[in-house]
């Protein structure tokens, strides 16, 4: 039986972007308010899962042609590089640095190297979650 899920698909097209924006907000809010790389990554993954529910696996992999295993290892590399950067300054591993910068539009903001570590976590979480879901979904 062929089902008509035009309502689900249309709603998904709107809601997907809201979820992604919210996940980016959560990701950047992590330092001062609840949030961070882990929840941010899970939210992004849940957005993609919603796409998978509304459409099928093939459509989603053609619109988002991402190899999630590579994404996971790039995330790990970013986290490792952030941690190991301190080796070149001869301070203990994982020593972070931050400073205040005047950015256009945003004004005075603090930028911290921990954000790069969080980016690594974010990519790993998205990569691992999507690898699990895709490989289970792919399996006949």
């Amino acid at each position, binding site marked *: 039986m062929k089902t008509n899920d035009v309502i689900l698909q249309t709603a998904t097209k709107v809601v997907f972007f809201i979820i992604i924006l919210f996940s980016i907000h959560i990701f950047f809010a992590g330092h001062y308010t609840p949030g961070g790389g882990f929840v941010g990554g899970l939210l992004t993954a849940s957005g993609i899962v919603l796409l998978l529910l509304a459409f099928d696996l093939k459509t989603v992999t053609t619109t988002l042609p991402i190899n999630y*295993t*590579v994404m996971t*290892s790039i995330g*790990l590399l970013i986290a*490792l590089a952030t941690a190991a950067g301190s080796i070149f300054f*001869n*301070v*203990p*591993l994982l020593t972070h640095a931050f400073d205040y910068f005047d950015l256009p539009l945003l004004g005075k903001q603090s930028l911290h190297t921990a954000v790069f570590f969080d980016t690594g976590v974010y990519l790993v979480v998205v990569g691992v979650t999507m690898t699990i879901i895709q490989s289970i979904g792919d399996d006949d």
Partner: protein
Amino acid sequence: MINLLLFPILLPFFFGIILMLFPKNLSVQRGGAIIGLLTTLIASVVLLVKVKADGIQAITLGSWPAPFGISMVSDMLSILLVFSSTLIALFVVWYSFSSIGKARESYFYYPGILFMITGVNGAFTTGDIFNMFVFFEVLLISSYLLIVLGGEKVQLRESIKYILVNIISSALFVVTVGYLYSVVGTLNMADIAVKIALINQPGIITVIAVLFLLVFGLKGAIFPLYFWLPSSYAAPPIPVLALFGALLTKVGVYAIMRTYTLFFTLDQSFTHELLMILSVLTIIAGCIGALAYFDVKKIIIYNIIIAVGVILFGTSQMNEAALMGSVFYLIHDILIKGALFLLIGIIIAITGTSNLRKMGGLIKTYPMLGWTFLIAAFGLAGIPPLSGFVGKLLIVQGGFQAENLWGSIFILASSLVVLLSVMRIFIYAFWGEPVEITPLTKRHYRGLFAPALILVVISVLYGVGSEWIVPYMNDAANVMLDPSQYIQAVLGGS
């Protein structure tokens, strides 16, 4: 270079990540794994020299002051273990080239090994009890991959048991760390030792000590908690089995040695007595298993359990001779178990079976293999010039000094059983009437035999050259006997 002690952890991690990017490119996988482990080995040798020259190396991550950040500590015991586990992994990877098969190699086999070495080296190096839990998980999750990779029926069945047991023991580990944290209020191992000494080890600390014994005993297979090990270890292919047999139980043993010599030292009458009784029972259980089977894998696997008992008996004596002996025996056992598993892997590859009754007469076709196996077997049992002798001698000496007559006699008797069990392999597989075999090609055989032979040679050198190794072992035992050096190195002057 204050980050030097982290290199044995970072390098395999880095190479593991890189290898994840090219799973299907076999030459990159093999080359990357070898280069990664070689650089790790070089880093650990440099670190070994530095620890010998300058004493204990310690660093607290993130430039935080000592008890507040995660401390990483490299004393002689941990760096010796890091060095020997990297060495074993290198030989296992070399052996894997000709034995593991392309299907497994292209599904993250080498990244799995590299991540496991990351976890093992991290667990040996860390100075923070919760960080030790995290590194345990790193090595366990990689070992789950290695035990199930290939998806044969027996692997699937045994991996379920293995994962179940390890998840339960990990949960217990978290609960135990929670209890300890609620009593002493700190997670840094040096700081825990100070705080326990301040409150003079009340009864609750003894309870926690027994809980730790339970947790690490499940990982390291001591007497009532070893039930999962024999069948689980028999499931994966030989190189994985060699890696597990040589390293994974030793991490549990190291954790018992560390906690029982650093934390729970004030009231030894109960905890160390319990450890001694359990280790003697472990030896007996292992001996029974080693004699009961006609399966070469099972015989060597039960020998792991015997060795765990011997090492922990040494630890429970808490005097210089016995502690030094247990470090000696620990390193010896990592080397010789690796070598023996690789050797029986060759026997199984030649005869196509692991059943001793179906083998025979291999000495006529493979004389080198036979004599190498005999030397490794003598080394395992502790025949004097070989590697197992000095460690066991010192452990027995320590046992007599602490007036634990019966335990020491059990250790001596267990050597006979060990010798008998491995000689049975030699007699059944190499002597007697030759049976029908499928001879390996020259190239395949050399690829399997070379790493095993070199490991046996290393273990012989370890035994013959024990005079040169003694100062290192002495340093390792000294830190265990006098934890104030460790505490001083981590917490500084305070």
